[in-house]
């Protein structure tokens, strides 16, 4: 993931001043981690929520103060609030449960065995993370992909830093073990699948 790094303050200032090129740089750097986060916590609604998050961010840009990781955390907070609203609204309107696309709460839990057979790219890695319990998956993504430190993750999800540290650790270990196991069992499974397909 590409960071603006030392250029961030100047780019933010220019974007706040209305410079569309600067805003584009801000977006290109911060959108991918945001949308990856949302793919795990919001599933099919990820792109929608990301777009709405940016619309809100555009209007509140002048009030943001902080560094680059703080900016990503700020976006996540906007997205989280928006998701919270969507879910509460949908809870009030149970009749629309199946009709509202915003209701694809969490990525449909993929079959771990299926996912680990694929080449490990970003898509597959995100789907693997989504197999974790939702709260743990969120903390893993915030820490690993959004790149927030433990204290910021703790602040966003409302948990103690120690709890975040351990949850992230356990989640990553569990996924790494699944990947490790998959590496050894893959030939057997492929053989089985091949036979079934034949």
């Amino acid at each position, binding site marked *: *993931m590409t960071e603006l790094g030392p250029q961030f303050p100047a780019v933010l200032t220019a974007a*706040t*001043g*209305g410079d*569309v090129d600067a805003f584009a740089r801000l977006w*290109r750097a911060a*959108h*991918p981690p945001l*949308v*990856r986060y949302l793919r795990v916590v919001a599933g099919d609604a990820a*792109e*929608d929520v*990301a*777009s*709405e998050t*940016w*619309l*809100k961010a*555009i*209007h*509140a*840009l*002048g*009030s*943001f*103060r*902080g*560094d680059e990781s*703080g*900016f990503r955390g*700020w976006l*996540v*907070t*906007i997205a989280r609030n928006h998701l*919270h*609203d969507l879910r509460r*609204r949908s809870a*009030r309107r149970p009749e629309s449960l199946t009709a*509202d*696309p915003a209701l694809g709460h969490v990525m449909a839990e993929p079959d771990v065995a299926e996912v680990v057979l694929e080449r490990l790219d*970003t898509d597959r*890695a*995100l789907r693997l*993370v989504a197999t974790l319990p939702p709260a743990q998956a969120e903390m893993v*993504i915030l820490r*690993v*992909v959004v790149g927030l430190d433990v*204290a*910021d993750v703790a*602040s*966003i999800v*409302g948990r103690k830093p120690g709890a975040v540290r*351990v949850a992230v*650790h356990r989640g*990553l*270990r569990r*996924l*790494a073990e699944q*990947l490790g196991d998959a*590496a050894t069992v893959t030939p057997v499974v492929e053989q089985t699948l091949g036979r079934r397909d034949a």
Partner: protein
Amino acid sequence: MPEITPPAGVNPLPDEPSDLWLVERALAGTGAPEGPLTELISALRAPAQPSELAGERDILAAFTAAQSSGIPTHRRAEHRADGRPDRKADRRGGRQADRRAGRRARPATRPAGRPTGRHVSKAAAIAAVVATIALGSTAAAYTGSLPGALQEIAHRTIHAPASDNASSSASVAATTDAGSPAAATTAVGPDATGTAALGLCTAQAAGGLAPTSTAYAELVEAAGGADKIEAYCATVSTPGSSTARPSTVPTTVPSTAEGGNGGNGGKPSTHPTGKRDDNPSTQRPTTPAHP
């Protein structure tokens, strides 16, 4: 994963997993051995794929529309910097009495054509952006060129399928007019002569209307010709510029994380925007600064 021992001086706390340090190293990218863990982290952090940046044009159009519709995120920043939000209003003539009385000039007393109050201009710009997105979606849907995500936004923002002309038009009217039901029109398709005109004009100004779209055709018709669009749009008023509607102004403006919620401000009451005070997820990270 090969067997490794923690570096000297690393003593995990009793309730922490013994190899916590290993994960921390992998996260920091410093000295963790190659294996499934580092592979996973690399994949999660891989550079952006083209599909993840596909929405750039749309969001830049929204950014441009927000700038041109008079919402100056930078102006707000200036106000904050000098701590004088109403500095410009104070400079205007006829404010002597207010100043002597120690009162701030009120937004409602400003010239109607140029809303400078933060709340008023904010509401107007949000309405314009929502209209831009919604109408851009409608127009693009007609030509079959709309990205799925934006289509969904349009769908949910105006609460109507883009293919449903009648309900779409009515909802857009309600949205752009910031909640004045009396102004809603019943025309089929985006009614460029009604309250949707602002959105069409905004979308057009932002380059969002395809020449082949129905929305563009509506605008041409309303203007009386393609060459008259500019003149026609100049006559279209901005919501909030004629009369401030305090009831539609987002009351959560100072809250940065929710600053844009006003985009929902014009929705019909059947789509409640939800109060913020019972929202437990308003905790924010400590790093970002807030007013």
